[in-house]
């Protein structure tokens, strides 16, 4: 933990850095960003969209001349990860939307990432090529075969520099292991295995083996009529390769130890907060449904996101979270309407900063929120084109609940519920964040003094 880095004190000011994506109003659905993820060094930033494409941005080297501008992210590679498919047996279309991207730690010059849609996980290798061999004996410069009879001398091909080319190749395809929709993938700390979770099952894979996976969690009831709960998210512990957690639609988190048994249907720990009787409503269960679960970098805590709050849990305390942060409590009285228009089912993600001192999550109206766990301060910021001047400092936003609305506040009834920030990412060691607002990707940095 680096003191000073990542604390949201009064001095931290967030500035606009970049925005990627088109400005037009009538954007195609395919461009909607569905996942955002920094790699382990923060050098690369990957996005997946509804059209099955992956775009990777690379941070350019910081130049000594432009100290005020930290490295910008520019497009490094773009490729089509998943295509729409048709399941002939069920007569169903399988969406190509990328649900999650997870990076593997870098072990050589190439980069590896996992990307998944509803049914299939793929391992992609992204590598650079900046040299090519020239001077083949049997082929000419265009690659055509030469007639051996015309060859009178032999030469050794040499490697000559060429324009940098970044290639993405699918190295593994992990298919046919999920009946239901995959919601999570998580790389294990052993770097040899990973898990994929759908609504009812979690499978463990070895990166080298694509035709087999181990089922480690199965909550499908014998009789589907008895189904009352689904898996909503899952993640491996960052250091203990035998431990993982998964969250449910009933607001519970289960921690499992794979050493205990092959099928982890019996949890090692069960995290659930008792329901607050004063807040009970018909929508209690829906708003308690956990949409994301993330281990802290330290591995000591887990963070969960439900519809109205973000909670931090200590792994050693199962009966309640140690911290609860209200994301947009003003929506509590609007749950009926949000149920009617299905917004109550929106799945927001949450992220830790590098030092686990600040957490961030999205909201509506292109607002996103940050909570400093130490100072207990929080801030609401907005990702919008209006605040998109280079190095413009983001002004904190405030939602007015009732009574007199101040000048810069926005009233609850004016919030745009079609502008939702579901996906955000935080650089692993610096104060750089990526915020996905529909089809635009915003990158913000803290102000460099």
């Amino acid at each position, binding site marked *: 933990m680096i003191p000073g880095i990542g604390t949201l004190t009064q001095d931290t000011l967030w500035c606009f850095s970049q925005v990627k994506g088109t400005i037009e109003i009538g954007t195609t659905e395919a461009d909607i960003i569905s996942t955002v993820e920094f790699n382990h060094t923060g050098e690369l930033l990957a996005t997946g969209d509804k059209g099955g494409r992956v775009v990777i941005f690379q941070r350019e080297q910081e130049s000594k001349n432009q100290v005020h501008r930290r490295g910008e992210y520019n497009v490094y590679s773009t490729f089509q990860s998943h295509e729409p498919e048709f399941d002939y047996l069920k007569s169903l279309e399988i969406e190509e939307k990328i649900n999650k991207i997870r990076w593997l730690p870098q072990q050589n010059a190439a980069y590896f990432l996992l990307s998944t849609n509803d049914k299939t996980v793929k391992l992609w290798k992204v590598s650079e090529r900046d040299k090519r061999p020239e001077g083949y004996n049997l082929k000419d410069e265009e690659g055509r075969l030469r007639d051996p009879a015309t060859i009178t001398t032999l030469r050794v091909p040499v490697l000559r520099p060429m324009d940098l080319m970044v290639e993405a190749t699918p190295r593994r395809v992990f298919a046919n292991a999920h009946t239901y929709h995959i919601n999570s993938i998580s790389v294990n700390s052993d770097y040899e295995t990973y898990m994929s979770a759908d609504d009812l099952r979690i499978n463990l894979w070895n990166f080298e083996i694509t035709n*087999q996976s181990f089922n480690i969690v199965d909550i499908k009831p014998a009789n589907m009529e008895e189904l009352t709960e689904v898996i909503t998210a899952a993640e491996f512990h960052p250091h203990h390769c035998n431990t993982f957690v998964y969250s449910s639609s009933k607001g519970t988190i289960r921690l499992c130890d794979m050493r205990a048994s092959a099928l982890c249907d019996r949890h090692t720990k069960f995290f659930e907060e008792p329901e607050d009787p004063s807040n009970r409503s018909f929508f209690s269960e829906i708003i308690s449904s956990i949409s994301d679960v993330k281990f802290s970098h330290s591995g000591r805590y887990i963070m969960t996101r439900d519809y109205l709050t973000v909670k931090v849990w200590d792994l050693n305390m199962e009966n309640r979270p140690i911290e609860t942060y209200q994301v947009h409590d003003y929506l509590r009285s609007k749950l009926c309407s949000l149920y*009617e228009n299905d917004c109550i089912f929106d799945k927001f993600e949450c992220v830790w900063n590098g030092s686990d001192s600040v957490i961030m999550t999205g909201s509506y109206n292109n607002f996103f929120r940050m909570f400093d766990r130490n100072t207990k301060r929080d801030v609401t910021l907005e990702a919008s084109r209006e605040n998109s001047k280079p190095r413009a400092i983001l002004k904190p936003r405030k939602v007015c609940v009732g009574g007199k609305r101040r000048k810069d506040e926005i009233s609850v*009834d004016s919030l745009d519920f079609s502008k939702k920030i579901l996906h955000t990412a935080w650089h692993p060691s610096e104060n750089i964040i990526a915020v996905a607002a529909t089809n635009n990707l915003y990158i913000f940095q803290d102000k460099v003094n």
Partner: protein
Amino acid sequence: MLSKGLKRKREEEEEKEHLAVDAWWLDPGHASVAQAPPAVASSSLFDLSVLKLHHSLQQSEPDLRHLVLVVNTLRRIQASMAPAAALPPVPSPPAAPSVADNLLASSDAALSASMASLLEDLSHIEGLSQAPQPLADEGPPGRSIGGAAPSLGALDLLGPATGCLLDDGLEGLFEDIDTSMYDNELWAPASEGLKPGPEDGPGKEEAPELDEAELDYLMDVLVGTQALERPPGPGR
């Protein structure tokens, strides 16, 4: 209350028109909304939930999380309405108990039955897709249909806890073959439709594209699923 930028789903808009709704609970100014909701749900909330459930189930592949949450919410609403019917008529609102009565009488059994049968359908679809192939999941070599191997859903090649499916399962799979399937005229020449039943039309159109090998493969697959689908006992 809903902002101008909000897009409603077209279907839900149409459904809303059909609802005879007294939308008092939508009004943010209404006292009840700000406080805890009434112990008895309004019938419009119940109707809305039923509509959501049907809408969800009508999708070719329902979002299971959405479905489960709506069903659970509906059960809660239903549970809260049941005691209201048993109570003596309350002065206000006078319409509520009788409405609840009618709803419960007509819809409770029907709702449970329809929810049950719809969830059952889901499980049968899932059962179909779970048919394990006798070969590795890369697909039987040399066989493909339309260039894409059909994805047969979960190939649960389970770990040590449950043993190897392939070793013991093959016998069981083919034990109970209904050979009348082969006699079925639908399976005779390749020009006949693929699927029996109401999908004869589209089946017949696409059949000429398939050759004998592909048809054989499909038959193998369906024989496997047929055997699995055959549940013991009466009824379905």
